[in-house]
């Protein structure tokens, strides 16, 4: 079993999801077994304006611990993260970071995932 612990920069109460990664996907958006997939599949919302297609940064999360349990970043994710506000060394896109091992991952959902540009 794996555990996803979700902290909110806004101060909202933390949430904990315990799940079996072998049961992924839990719904249709994002990579199967990704943080986004796990959250949406357990009725915990996370913004994903592009439908989990790695085309925006609205599902940006900061991994506080347990990075070793997640898949490695791919080039597309890094290209997109470069444009994420509040980027940190442990930033990931929820739609691309996939649970690859049992274990615990703790993430912080940033206060803002601003992706707006106006022309």
């Amino acid at each position, binding site marked *: 079993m794996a555990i996803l612990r979700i902290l909110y920069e806004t101060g909202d109460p933390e949430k904990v999801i315990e799940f079996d990664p072998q049961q992924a996907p839990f719904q*249709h*958006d994002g990579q199967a077994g990704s943080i986004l997939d796990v959250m949406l599949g357990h009725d915990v919302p996370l*913004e*994903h*304006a*592009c*439908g989990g*297609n*790695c*085309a*925006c*940064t*609205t599902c940006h999360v900061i991994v506080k611990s347990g990075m070793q349990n997640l898949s490695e970043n791919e*080039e*597309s994710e890094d*290209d*997109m993260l470069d*444009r994420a506000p509040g980027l940190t060394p442990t930033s990931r896109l929820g739609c691309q970071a996939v649970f690859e091992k049992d274990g615990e991952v703790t993430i912080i959902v940033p206060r803002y995932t*601003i*992706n*707006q*540009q*106006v*022309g």
Partner: protein
Amino acid sequence: MNTDSRTVSKAVIERIIEHTSDTRSFFLRPCNDRRLSFIPGQFLSLQLPVDGKTLTRPYSIASNPEDGGPLEICLNLVPGGQGSYYLFSLVAGDMVNFSGPWGTFTLKDPPAAECIFLADGVGIVPIRSMIRRALVHHSQFPVRLLYRADCEQHLLYREELESWARQHARFAFEPRLDHLSNRADGVTDSFREEIEARYIKQDEDHSRYFYICGVGAVVTQLRDLLRGGGYQRRAVLYEKW
């Protein structure tokens, strides 16, 4: 009224154009006089009620920010795609919920360099608006579109693109037809080989910018080809659907 991208708004489908039996444009008029500012290349995020749930699906904006008219999104019917099937069931007068604009695959001001747009299928949708932005700027740098589709009917906006090429000497439009049978889970050999030959093997000028859009592996294959061929990461921009 101008609001944050995350605001969910309603829009009425003002009209629908059928490009082909499986490709349609929907013209969306935001309600409550919401004026949507966006950069060419951005997309809307539609919230679609499907099977008792809300499905979030992105659709690139084909229209021009300066038009001031309804927002055009253009999509094809994806086999098994819940979002496109739902939208294809709608008629003029129906309403949809959306947020946006979103996305960073954009062209606000064209770079001081040659711009090469590589569009595969419906990947032309955001690129259409980006090319218009590039052409209205007073620049001498060439703008070129290589647009691949699997049949004549799927070369969307062809007449318009040809007319731009006649109007602007620095714009070249080069349609390419490759049938699906030639594809091996991604970009066709002929399309890839042409790009490799023209921009890597036969040309050592790596100052140009590339904007790539399409569906599936074709996009990252072209990205890897160009970056691996000596173009800087920031000069190869892409959006993969």
